[in-house]
């Protein structure tokens, strides 16, 4: 029983050390190659983040997001003009999240 307790405490302590060593999530930048695009064209949008087990979620107030992951294309159909917000939410393996939003103008 004493031996089991010692092993259990050691393992738990190791786990705690591992969690503390996890790279923290840092979402440093969300940037588009072009801030203004003509309707019917697209531009790349790039999310730069560090952390472990990162996943990316994208949404736009109007227009289309093509692709997935850290780099996507934002496309503005002819019905989309004006300022449109593109939001990227990054999540790590510890379920920590960070979001950034940029504006791309369709003309």
């Amino acid at each position: 029983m004493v031996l089991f307790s010692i092993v259990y405490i050691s393992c738990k302590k190791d786990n705690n050390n591992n969690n503390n060593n996890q790279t923290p999530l840092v979402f440093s930048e969300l940037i588009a190659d072009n801030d203004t695009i003509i309707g019917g064209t697209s531009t790349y949008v790039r999310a730069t983040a560090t952390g472990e087990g990162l996943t990316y979620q994208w949404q736009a107030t109007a227009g289309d997001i093509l692709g997935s992951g850290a780099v996507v294309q934002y496309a503005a159909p002819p019905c989309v003009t004006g300022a449109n917000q593109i939001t990227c939410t990054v999540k790590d393996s510890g379920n920590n999240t960070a979001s950034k939003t940029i504006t791309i103008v369709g003309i």
Partner: protein
Amino acid sequence: MYCFKLLVILFFVLIINTVKAQCFGSPGNPIAGSANLGVLLKKSYRAIAFYKHADLTGYKKGDVKTPYQYVKNANYNYIGFNMGYGLSHKISLDADMGYYINKTQKYAIADFTHNGYGLSNGSVGVKYNFYLDNVKKVEYTAGVNAKFPLALEPMETDGVVLPIDVQPSTGNFGLIAQSFFVKQFPEKSVRFIIINRYEKNFNENRQGYSFGDALSSSVFISKHLWLSWTSLFKDVTAILQLRHEYRARNKNFGTQVVNSGSNIIFCSPQLNYNFNKIWNFSAIIDIPCYQYYNGLQLSNKLAFSFSVTKDFGLVH
């Protein structure tokens, strides 16, 4: 009268789902079809299942084709279900729902395809037979349905929230009002039918989108293909439908979407087959004869539908 009710109901099943809208002319997620416009016999039930496929390709500005390319083509496959119940000889209840097997949009500006799928919208409603003259063979029925989305959260795949045009549900709550007028000419086995439907959406969905009001008016002429020299077509009815669909502009976060809304006229030939007075099978092709789009939108091509209807609790 019974066969007549079945026949007319099937027309309407295949109308509703073709109300279209949007920036690329894709369907605005209409409901599966409120099939029991003519009221049902008291204490009888009716179940309808139908399938529809539609294609969209090529852009139009107004009613003029353009070489514009953004979406190369789009298509959808949709199944709908409707249940009706005759509460009394003048009142019927009905409920329906739909499911998109797919709503697909293939882009021309990039080698990429978006594909949405899932539950669409549903509705519950009541119909009332305001006028029935069995001598003059005239009937008028009207009804109202409450419409609701079967999914509120927008669909996302691979971490990307799908564009509004491929979302399976509109996310809008609303009301549908419809009327149904029938005049029979039994000596000629001919029926003349007018159906009107108005749909209003009340709220923005969770993508900030609200689909515009829709109004459709249809005129049907049907002919029972009974021939004296053969019994081959005795249970077959041919129908020709002329349908006008008007769609007001949509709104995105309260601002009108300029390239949305349309006026389309469809010519839709249809064949119905009735089996044993309780089964009905129907096939219809939607041919867009005239299309006018506000601004620049992807236009409709052919669509086709099949439906099966079964009645329960009837006394013959």
